[in-house]
């Protein structure tokens, strides 16, 4: 439960994607390259900027509320560097539209994580 600020606009649904440190580094690299490119569409740039923020927020979330993440790791056997990165549909579509995204990171975002 959270008491959000009263001027809080409607929030999009954020869906967790369980990404390893390598996946997150790859998403970060691809997004950073796209955001820095002069030809990026301004709307896409906003969504990708939010993805960069989320990559940091995911790390902060793990520090403040580690218990549910640890439970999932215990149940699945995933290693300690796997954390949930929560993306809206628009943010996910923005990341998947990047040709520079590696195949493993793309698979982790679209197919889920099996091991």
């Amino acid at each position, binding site marked *: 439960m959270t008491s959000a600020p009263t001027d809080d606009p409607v929030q999009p649904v954020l869906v967790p994607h369980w990404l390893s440190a390598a996946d997150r580094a790859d998403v970060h690299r691809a997004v950073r390259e796209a955001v820095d490119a002069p030809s990026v569409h301004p709307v896409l740039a906003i969504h990708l900027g939010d993805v960069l923020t989320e990559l940091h927020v995911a790390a902060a979330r793990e520090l*403040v*509320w580690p218990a549910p993440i640890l439970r999932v790791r215990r149940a699945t056997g995933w290693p300690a560097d796997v954390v949930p990165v929560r993306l809206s549909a628009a943010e996910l579509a923005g990341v998947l539209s990047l040709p520079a995204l590696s195949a493993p990171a793309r698979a982790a975002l679209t197919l889920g994580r099996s091991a």
Partner: protein
Amino acid sequence: MTGTPFGAPAGLLQRLTRGQVRVGDLVAAVEGLGTAPPEPGLQLTVEQGDVLLVEDGRRTRVPLEELADRMSRAHVRATPQGVTAALRSWLAHRPVSEGDAAARGIAVLDWADPGQTVLGWRVVVARGGTIATWRAAPSTPAPVVHRIRSAALGRAHALPADLRLAGPVALWSLPGAPGMDTAVLVRPEELLAESAAAGLPMRDPQVVVTPHRPVACADAGVARRLGVEATEPSVTMPWRDLADLGWG
């Protein structure tokens, strides 16, 4: 206060094979801990069928049979080791005395209501892996309450905090005082200055407060993203509103 009075819940097998905690085991545990009490100033003895606790001049009696029965109902393992561990946990959950609060209380932000919606300051002490809250007796004079609270604020102020930056999020924790991380918020202006000095100035800082957990701070949009997905009860509020929080 955190945890259950007799320690971690028993496993499923222990719940199914419920054993009866015997008064003899409890007496042995009391006498064992009585010779080496978990805290100085605490006396623990068996007297006329009761467990007698003496602390700060205050005497508390609990009938042995009643305590043994409560342990049985809480599925405490009915072995000398299990009963001793449960007794140790029970002692850690006893009320905080005025003397203990005055000597080592620390001010933290915690829930001020059962619904966990309102934050307030309280005085706590660390004890046997748990955090116990001091509650002023109705008879405690107001100047004494004020003195204990002021000292607790001062101790919180002196605790060395650890600042960690996760991109646009500043996180503060107290490595030396686990579970008391919200104590850092007794000095909010200094925290903002530390964040700025570390390379993260904030224009519209919001704080995400989760009692017993590290404190997060970020500009409004980022804090909203963090707080909305919180998996434990927490409050996201403007930094400036910290000054308005009272004692819970």
